[in-house]
């Protein structure tokens, strides 16, 4: 058998990222002292370089490489670009916090870049094994990041939980992969789709494999009933890490679901739809109800993440390209909004003090009307009130679900979504109540570096402006999912 050098070009963004992150890793060894300005700069530069390569590669072609187990396509490029962008936000938001807490170490940036690499590999996966490899790169980096503040018992505890549960989930996923491989004889999505067309997949082993795959995906998403790790990890990790976990990995989870369920097992839509219905409804119900009871903002946002994941799954379970587009739009806008909301927690963290209780936001409007308005943008956006962008995400998903087919199921799902949106609005309003209606607990002015303030403001205004003019992003989502 002849050895053919594979085409490396479709993986060029990943190669650039990997190369530059090695540079960051080595350069950091030569940085002395508390501050890691050089490391930070290099990390940001490598993000920019990756983004530039992605942008130049364009958004039109679909190319397979590495014997069909790796794909570069428009959907992948858009997802990767947004993942890079959200990582850029993380770096800008995290820096000052890490410095003031005395935990700014080069590893934070390196591990984050590794996580991003994992995300990009997952997004580009065209076979179950590539997918699994990307997932492990991502997960292992995240485990380490959660435990990043090694002196904190809370962080160590939640890292342990995350690791044990995550390892089990990875095992489940791998077991599912092997069952699917055993029954269908391939791990590549294209071949799986082909094999299913031949055999109808009517095989007990395959059903088990499919169930395990869905369970693994649900765990990575944090969908009910595989959501137990989310609140503890979000709460226990230092806020910049929570910010990271809450944003870019959602894009990876979305890619995981689309690649496996739609690209690979799309013909079995009727089968996995039932499972997703249970997961989605469970997530929306449990997430919203549990969030009502939280007093800690990180925990509240963690439960709200679960609820939002339910919405993303609703879009996927519709099983139409309209539904996938809706889920994509929802994922991207959710990342934008939740990233901003976590950054607000960082904004209030001053001089080594965490401010992640909802009560810490008391009277923010008196301390800084501008940032109070920014927080209002994020909260109204997450609650799905027009004209903020979260509304269009919800509208898109509800519209797709109603259009997916006739029958009481879809109408019931739509009603569940709107009713729980109202219930969900309550806890976001409670945050605003604290900000606008209560007297301030401290009169300390808010001091943050210029870049932090500008980027946060831009982030919030993007949530508002994308809500006023959602057409561009909607068109983008429509163009990458045929």
């Amino acid at each position, binding site marked *: 058998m002849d050895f053919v050098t594979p085409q490396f070009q479709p993986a060029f963004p990943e190669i650039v990222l990997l190369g530059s992150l090695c540079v960051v890793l080595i350069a950091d060894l030569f940085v002395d002292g508390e501050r890691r300005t050089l490391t930070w700069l290099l990390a940001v530069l490598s993000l920019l370089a990756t983004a530039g390569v992605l942008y130049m590669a364009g958004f039109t072609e679909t190319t397979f490489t590495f014997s069909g187990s790796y794909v570069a396509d428009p959907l992948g490029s858009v997802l990767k670009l947004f993942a890079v962008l959200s990582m850029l936000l993380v770096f800008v938001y995290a820096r000052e916090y890490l410095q003031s807490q005395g935990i700014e170490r080069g590893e934070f940036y390196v591990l984050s870049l590794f996580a991003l690499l994992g995300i990009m590999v997952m997004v580009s996966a065209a076979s179950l094994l590539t997918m699994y490899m990307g997932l492990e790169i991502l997960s292992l980096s995240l485990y380490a990041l959660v435990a990043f503040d090694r002196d904190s018992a809370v962080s160590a505890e939640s890292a342990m939980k995350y690791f044990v549960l995550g390892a089990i989930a990875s095992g489940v996923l791998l077991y599912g992969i092997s069952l699917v491989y055993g029954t269908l004889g391939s791990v590549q999505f294209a071949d799986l789709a082909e094999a299913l067309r031949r055999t109808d997949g009517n095989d007990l082993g395959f059903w088990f494999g499919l169930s395990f795959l869905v369970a693994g995906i649900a765990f990575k998403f944090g969908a009910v009933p595989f959501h137990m790790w989310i609140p503890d990890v979000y709460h226990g990790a230092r806020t910049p890490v929570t910010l990271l976990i809450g944003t870019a990995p959602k894009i990876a989870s979305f890619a995981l679901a689309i690649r496996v369920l739609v690209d690979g097992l799309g013909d079995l839509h009727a089968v996995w739809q039932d499972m997703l219905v249970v997961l989605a409804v469970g997530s929306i119900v449990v997430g919203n109800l549990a969030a009502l009871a939280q007093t800690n903002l990180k925990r509240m946002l963690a439960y709200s993440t679960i609820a939002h994941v339910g919405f993303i799954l609703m879009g996927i379970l519709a099983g139409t390209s309209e539904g996938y587009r809706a889920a994509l739009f929802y994922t991207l806008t959710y990342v934008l909004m939740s990233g901003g909301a976590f950054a607000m927690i960082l904004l209030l963290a001053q001089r080594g003090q965490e401010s992640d209780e909802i009560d810490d936001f008391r009277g923010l*409007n*008196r301390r800084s*009307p501008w940032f109070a*308005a920014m927080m209002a943008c994020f909260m*109204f956006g997450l609650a799905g*009130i*027009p*004209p903020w962008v979260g*509304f*269009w995400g919800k*509208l898109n998903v*509800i*519209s797709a679900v*109603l*259009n997916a087919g006739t029958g009481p199921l879809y109408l019931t799902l*739509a*009603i569940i979504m*709107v*009713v729980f*949106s*109202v219930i969900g*609005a*309550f806890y976001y*309003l*409670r945050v*605003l*109540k604290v900000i*606008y*209606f209560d007297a301030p607990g401290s009169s300390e002015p808010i001091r943050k570096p210029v870049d932090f303030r500008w980027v946060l403001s831009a982030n919030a205004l993007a949530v508002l402006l994308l809500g006023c003019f*959602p*057409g561009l992003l*909607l*068109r983008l989502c*429509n163009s990458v999912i045929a």
Partner: protein
Amino acid sequence: MIEYMLSILIWLPTIGGLAVLFLGSGDRSDSSSAGWGAPLALGISVLTLALCWPLVAGFDNSIADMQFVERTPWIGAFNVYYHLGIDGLSLPLIVLTAFVTPLVIIAGWNVITRSPAQYFGAFLILEGLMIGVFCALDGMLFYVFWEAMLVPMFIIIGVWGGTRRVYATIKFFLYTFLGSVFMLVSLIYLYLESGSYSLLEFHSLPIGMTAQTLIFLSFLFAFAVKVPMWPVHTWLPDAHVEAPTGGSVILAAIMLKMGGYGFVRLSLPITPDASQSLAWLMITLSLIAVVYIGFVALVQKDMKKLIAYSSIAHMGFVTLGFFLLWPILAQTGSTDGAALGVGGGMVQMVSHGLVSGAMFFCVGVMYDRMHTREIADYGGVVNTMPHFAAFMVLFAMANAGLPGTSGFVGEFMVILSAFKANFWYAFLAATTLILGAAYTLWMVKRVVFGDVANEQVAALTDLNGREYFVLGVLAIAVLLVGVWPDPLVEMMAASVENLVSQVSQSKL
């Protein structure tokens, strides 16, 4: 320029309001100067009112079509258009909105000491969004304005409200939000059926009976909460009592009208057959609001609560007038009688906007001096505030529907048309003339007349120039509509007739 008039009316206050938010912030300890916010806000709101003039002058009463239409694509992916236009049903409400807002700003001039710029900015944004609701001809645009409107009101009640403001404002927000999400589902359904969100296309879209009924009920939920109709009215007394004076005025004068407007713009023309088959329900609920809530108002001890309940009773007249359409058509077969009821409902909306707004201003005037709204804390106000007492009595009479005031016109039209439908409808509706007089005048008697009740009342000072102006302007408007309603009725006549003929065609 005139073709972009509606856009200007929407965005001038909205963007102006944002500017006011940024120009001034922080608290004002001395009440001598209002800072930058208030004059700027007043200027913008007066300019908005002035810009209504070309709208009214350029409006053609004789045609029922949409006028001043603007239509540009907004969101291609959903086929959503930025589609504005007005007819005789929306124009009076737009003018009412532009008329009340400057008064609210004047009324809050020196009274609001905490973050005044945010207060005035919020009202301006609210004004723009409310005008947007009345102009929108695209379902999604309508919904966006409809929901976005909740945000400034939420802030207004929550920041500048009374002691239980947090409870009241969250209840207000969630109640109305819950009502409107069902409307959203219906709008999406209509979009999937027709391929666009255009309300005008919805009007001519044939829909089956089951779907019509479901759509009607979902619209009903959204609008009934807003109107509010019994039994989903419970948010209103709370919101009214806790809101600052300006908030109560806008709530009563404009926001409640959104519900009534929704019925004539969406429910009736989109689901005529369901409206017909459920007219009995609507009439029953309206009569319950008129009679039962009238009795409830009678026993209130808090002035604002009393006026809030009287608002519910009066808005019952509005929905009664709209849905009497079917029994009248069935009884007489003539569309003229039906148009009388719908027109009466519309006039009642405008009149109630003026009268209830004025009543809340009156309570605000007293509250600013005494810091209590309990009727029992007052008595003999006429002795110390004779000018104020004169205004208060005038507005109370208008609230009770005295001929010569605006309150009479709408109620009379609705009762008259009720007689054509069914004697008992008319009989029950007419009880409002007694009940309305009873609760309003009894309150006035206890508050205004009699001996001076206590030292605080004895120390009251009469109206200052600012308050004089606000109440005077409202009094002129109330009397003008009362003695010369023709221009108002004519403005709406063609659109009302068009509506009636439109809904009398089955869409099955």
